[in-house]
């Protein structure tokens, strides 16, 4: 069988890749994609821990299910914001949206 830590390492890899994407990409949509990767890494972790440590309690799976709901809400609002910004500024570069910056 596959030891638990292998799943955790894969999840860590996914998280770190997503994190790099979020921190480094200029395009806001690409940043959102990175966030999705990070959320997925978290889900892999949740399910792996559920499977290896408490398979009789369903908390891991249930939390993963709620992560889906949160991810959907986040994607809906995030992308709507990006489209709204694009309409006004004709740009989806995150650095261009600096109205509140000083």
């Amino acid at each position, binding site marked *: 069988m596959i030891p638990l830590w292998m799943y955790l390492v894969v999840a860590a890899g996914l998280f770190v890749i997503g994190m790099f994407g979020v921190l480094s990409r200029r395009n806001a949509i690409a940043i959102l994609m990175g966030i999705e990767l990070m959320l997925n890494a978290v889900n892999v972790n949740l399910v792996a821990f559920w499977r290896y440590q408490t398979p009789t309690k369903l908390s891991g799976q249930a939390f993963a299910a709620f992560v889906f709901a949160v991810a959907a809400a986040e994607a809906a609002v995030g992308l709507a914001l*990006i489209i709204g910004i694009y309409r*006004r500024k004709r740009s989806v570069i995150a650095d261009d949206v600096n109205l509140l910056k000083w």
Partner: protein
Amino acid sequence: MDITAEAIVFLLLSVLTLGSALLVVTTRNLFHAALYLMLALFGVAGFFVLLAAPFLAGFQVVVYIGAIAVLIILAVMLTPSVTRLPRIYNAQWAVNLALAVVFFLLLFSVLTPVVDDLGISGTWGANFTQNSPADVPASSVSDLGEALVDPQQYMLPFELASVLLMGALIGAALLVSPTARDDEDAPHESGQGA
């Protein structure tokens, strides 16, 4: 770990997921990046199957690939002038890369038994040494259904999820609906931007 069929599948899925995740953050063409994102998400669904959570695998494909990724592709199509940016990374990308690598190594050393095996430190690793999972009850799929709507367990989060999604839909619809556009604020020159 001996080479079992499961191990091979796990390895393939890891390569698929991490490889396409890397392509997501490195591909210039955002449409391709979105397709790679789908592939990565699909790999994660494979992990869920491997972890005996088929329900979540179904959730994953329906919600992430069928809906979120489609929404992302649509957003890419609606903002096409930026599919081929001259620079895809911001100024701090090298620092971020270093940060990411360091963070990954840190996590790796904590999560795996490697450090402990080397005898460097006895307390550093987190000791996730469960090698074989316990059996999952056969009814786990319908148990999840009961748990989600059971007032003793996850009923409140279940309803809150509905409230959250309602809020998200209302907010997002307000942001993109045609009536939300006030034209006097819009920039007069059209072709500015990247």
